[in-house]
Every structure is written in structure tokens, then in C-alpha cells.
């Protein structure tokens, strides 16, 4: 019975696999030629070849594409470095790296032409939204998590209300709030550009989810750690920052990384409020009348691009979980 099932499954996989390979490789067209693509019965990767610049860099000036390319490489390198080594010099490295990325992207100095951030797009925008989103949301989430476990009823109520409100509504509504309501909240004459508005929404959203991961870590700290800290005569601030948080954050690393993966995927929603992130540039490429009708190829490419980032992060998170299990708490 089991053998028959396996044989059946095996044949099915081979059949579908063969059909997919035939479509995606054997009969595929790699030249950027829409006529050849429409004539062929296979996939049209020529579309990606033709549009790769637009997909990777959005509407950034064509001659300056090396700047977002270099910034993307720099940012990914910083992330990998942070994942592999844990040394004090990471902090100055990040500060230096982010300043260089700012200089590269905006320009206006060292003979680089100025590029306003309305024209940023593609991969670098996805990476920047993720990086700055996490960088600002993380400290906020620690405050929220501590607030939620505070003994002061008012502080606790405020933090619970914030976390549950944000977690109870879809991200898209937070993005709508930022894009249409934020201008109303600010005094007349003060305007915030679209990119910053989306970034604020993403930070507010990520903070609530990260806070729950941090809270999980705080809850895992045994009570005697608090008592021991009290017995040493440490006050709340001292015991929290020297005793409790270092242990809690270490425990919370795997769920934090998982939240980060989710957040990276969620940044694709900025497409709906009109920012040109990686997914958005792919969608825009499809609106070229010469190239309509290759959505399947385009979104398979998008899926592959996101998969590479997310899967490597989830492999990393799994390794962390294994090593956390080995060394115990």
C-alpha cells in the first residue's frame, strides 16, 4: 500500500517537475524580445533581463545606479557581519555604514549629484525600510515590553492598549493611517514625505510585534533573578539593564529573528500606498504595454528574490535555536 502510494507520488512529482522544467528552462526565452516571448510556449525570462535595471533600482537616475547597488551590498554585508560576529566594533561599523549609505543615496557632496528620496526604489528601498524599521522599533519594543510587565497600572494599561491595538488591526490600516492621517496630525506648514510616513508606520507596527517577543524573554527569567538583583541593592533601572535585559534578550533572540523575517516580508505592503520597493518595481515593469502578460514570470522572480533573503534568515534563526538549546539557559 505504502509502496504504491510512493510510486504514485513519485510519478506525479516527475510529471509536474518535467512540465515545469520544460516551461521554465527548455522552452524558455532569454532574449529581451517580446515577439519571441509571445511566440514561445515557455517562460519569458527575457522580460527580467530587459527590466532588470528598473526592478533593481526603480526610478533612480540611470547613470547613478552604482550608488544604490553599492549601498545594497554594504547594507547586506553589515547584516551578515552582525549575524556572524558579535563584537563591540559592530556599533561604530553600523554608524559608519549608514552614514556612507546616506551619502551615497542622497549625494549632493563629493561631486555626487543630489537624488531626492522620491526617486529611490527597488531592492535598496526594501532593505532600508527593513533596517531603519527594526533599528527604531527595537528600542521602542523593549520599553513597551517592560511597560507591559510594569507594576504601575497606568503605564501597563497604556502599553497593553498600544500593543493589542496594533496587533489587532492589519498593517495596511496602519499604513493608511500614516499616509492619509499623519498630514492632518501635524501643524500647518510641516510636511513629511511619503517615504518617512511609511517608515513611521512600519516602526509603530514592528514595535508592537517585537515587544511581544521581548516579553516572552522577560517572562522566561526566573523570579530569583529579580530577588537576587534586589538583594544586591540595585534599583529598577540598574537591575533591568544589567541583570534582566541581557538574559531576557538572549532568550528572545530566536522569536525576534522570526519577527524580523515577518517584518521583511511585510515591507512589501508599502506598494499599496505607492512606494517603489522591490515588489512595486516588478509590478511597474509589467505595466509597459510591450511587456504586459508576463506576470507569472515576474512574480516567480519576485518570489525567488524574497525567498533567498527570508530563507537564509530562517536558516540562521534555526541555527540559533539549536545553539541556544545546546548551551541551555
Amino acid at each position, binding site marked *: 500500500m505504502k509502496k504504491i502510494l510512493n510510486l504514485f507520488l513519485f510519478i506525479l512529482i516527475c510529471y509536474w517537475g518535467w512540465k515545469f522544467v520544460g516551461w521554465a528552462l527548455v522552452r524558455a526565452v532569454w532574449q529581451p524580445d517580446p515577439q519571441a516571448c509571445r511566440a514561445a510556449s515557455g517562460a519569458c525570462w527575457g522580460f527580467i533581463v530587459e527590466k532588470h535595471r528598473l526592478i533593481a533600482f526603480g526610478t533612480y537616475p540611470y547613470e547613478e545606479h552604482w550608488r544604490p547597488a553599492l549601498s545594497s551590498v554594504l547594507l547586506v554585508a553589515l547584516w551578515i557581519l552582525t549575524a556572524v560576529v558579535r563584537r563591540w566594533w559592530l556599533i561604530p561599523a553600523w554608524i559608519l555604514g549608514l552614514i556612507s549609505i546616506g551619502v551615497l543615496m542622497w549625494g549632493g557632496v563629493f561631486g555626487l549629484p543630489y537624488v531626492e528620496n522620491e526617486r529611490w526604489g527597488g531592492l535598496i528601498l526594501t532593505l532600508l525600510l527593513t533596517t531603519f524599521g527594526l533599528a527604531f522599533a527595537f528600542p521602542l519594543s523593549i520599553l513597551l515590553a517592560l511597560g507591559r510587565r510594569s507594576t504601575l497600572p497606568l503605564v501597563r494599561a497604556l502599553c497593553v492598549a498600544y500593543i493589542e491595538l496594533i496587533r489587532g*488591526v*492589519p498593517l495596511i490600516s496602519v499604513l493608511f493611517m500614516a499616509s492619509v492621517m499623519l498630514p492632518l496630525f501635524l501643524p500647518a506648514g510641516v510636511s513629511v514625505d511619503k517615504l518617512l510616513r511609511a517608515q513611521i508606520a512600519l516602526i509603530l507596527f514592528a514595535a508592537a510585534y517585537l515587544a511581544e517577543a521581548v516579553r516572552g524573554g522577560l517572562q522566561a527569567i526566573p523570579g530569583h533573578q529579580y530577588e537576587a538583583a534586589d538583594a544586591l541593592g540595585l534599583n529598577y533601572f540598574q537591575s533591568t539593564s544589567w541583570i534582566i535585559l541581557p538574559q531576557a534578550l538572549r532568550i528572545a533572540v530566536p522569536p525576534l529573528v522570526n519577527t524580523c523575517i515577518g517584518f521583511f516580508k511585510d515591507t512589501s*505592503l508599502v*506598494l499599496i500606498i505607492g512606494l517603489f520597493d522591490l515588489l512595486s518595481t516588478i509590478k511597474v515593469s509589467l505595466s509597459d504595454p510591450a511587456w504586459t502578460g508576463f*506576470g507569472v514570470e515576474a*512574480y516567480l522572480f519576485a*518570489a525567488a528574490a*524574497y*525567498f533567498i533573503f527570508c530563507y537564509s534568515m530562517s536558516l540562521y534563526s534555526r541555527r540559533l535555536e539549536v545553539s541556544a538549546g545546546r548551551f541551555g539557559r
Partner: protein
Amino acid sequence: MAVQALAAALVIAAAAYLLFNTLANLEARRIASGFAFLWHEAGFEIGESAFAYGAADSYFRALLVGLANTFKVAVLGIVAATVLGTAIGLFRLSGNRLLAGLSSCYVELLRNVPLLVQLFFWYALITEGLPAPREALSPLPGVFLTNRGLFFPTFGGVPELQGFNFAGGGALSPEFAALLIGLSLYTAAFIAEIVRAGVLAVRRDQWHAAQALGLERRDVLRYVVAPQAMRIIVPPLTSQYLNLTKNSSLAVAIGYPDLVSIANTTINQTGQAIEGVTIIMAVYLTISLAISALMNRYNARLR
């Protein structure tokens, strides 16, 4: 006490500042606040509706149509994702290496690609990959897959080609089909992991004891493991149901008229941004709290 007073003062001051600015801005832009616009004529058509609706109806009725559409896709999606997710989760644990391997591939692939990309993909596959109604694919008699939607027979009738499209029987629009497929397959990957973790959390000796009693593998799973695993599975499962419902708001990106999509149109037409966003948030918060409350009761009964 001082900390609390300070926190309260800060929050009140921030809220007052924002409120003051908002009122000033609204006055400057001559936008009347309040929900009176709900009873004005909406003036736009909606592609699919559970009940009678026309462009002459009010915004309120349009939003109700959107809410009904959200419920429709969420309920069907939850059922499909639960069935599929449970099956895949159990496959991963089965002794069959091929089946287990396939299931883990499924979970890794689906979990690591943004839902929005998947929705666009399914929508492109239906509207570009499927043939026109005249050359419809018919995998089963009476079932037709076309780029205009999926048609299937119901008790009321059988779909038949009339002019350029099918009529009669049941039909799923491309937007609805893409959203339902995308949401179900994506959430199923997360549910599979929950089911797997739940079954693995049941202690090994429970399996051994049940086997020693002479139960078959299927009966062990059904009478011994499942009831214990359910206690572990239900809380995270609830949050997946909530996620699915919240994720159904991505419908706006592929043009399915769910609540968010209708509210978005309403905001664009009336300029009532605060009211529109408030409606969206209030509805989802109500759904979230209701599902949480329901699941907490179920959980309490299990213990």
C-alpha cells in the same frame, strides 16, 4: 506615582497636540468631520456582492458589502487552511520520507515568500495562464477554469457557455479565487508547523502506552494524541485565524472588494480619512477581540 503622573501627562499632552493640529487642519481644508457621509450616495459599483447593491446606495451599504466579502473570504479561507495545514503537518510526521520531504518543502517555500507576492502570482496565473472561456480547461465535467474566473455546477444549475462567458451554476471571480487560494495556501504552511509542534509535544510514552494497548497508528493519533495535542495547538491556531482575517485586507492590491478596499475608495471620494481608517480599525479590532474571546472559551473548556 510620579512616573505614572508623568506618563499620563505626556500621553494627554501628545493627544491634545495632535487633536489641536487635526482640528485646525480640518478647518483649513474645509472637511466636515463626523460620520454623516455614511448616508450619502456612494456612486460606485462593486464587482461582487452578497446582497443587492447599486451605485445609488449609501456608503454605509457599500461598506457592509465590503464587510460581507471580507467574512466570505475569511471563513472559507480558515476552513481550507485548517484542512490543508493539518494534513501537511501530519504528513511531515508520517514515516513516509517522500511525503515528509515534500511537506517540508511546501512549508519552507510558502512561509518565506511575502503573501502579497503570492497573491499577485495566483492572480497572474489565473488571468494570464488560464485560457479564455471559449477554450476553458475542464478538469472535471461541469467545472471550467478560465481567465474570467472558475465555474462549477451547483444544485441550481450547470455552467454553460453563453456568448463570451459562462452562465449558470456557481462562479468564483479571478480576484476572489486568487485571494482564497493565496490566503489558504499561505496560512496552511503556518498551521502545518503548529500541528506538527503540537503532536511532537505529546510525550513519547503516550504513544508507546497506546501502542502497548494494541491500538493502531491511526487510532493512537485519534484517541490519544489528538486530544492532548489540541490543548497546545488551539492558542497559536487562533492567532493564525486572526492573521488570515487581517491578511484578507491585502485584497485591495488585487481588486477584490473587501472592507479595506471599499473603505479606501470611500476615503478617496469623500476625503474622510480619519473616519475611514477608524472604521477599518474598529471592525478588525472587533473581529480580533471576538475570535480571541471565542477561542479563550473553547480553551477553558478543553482544560
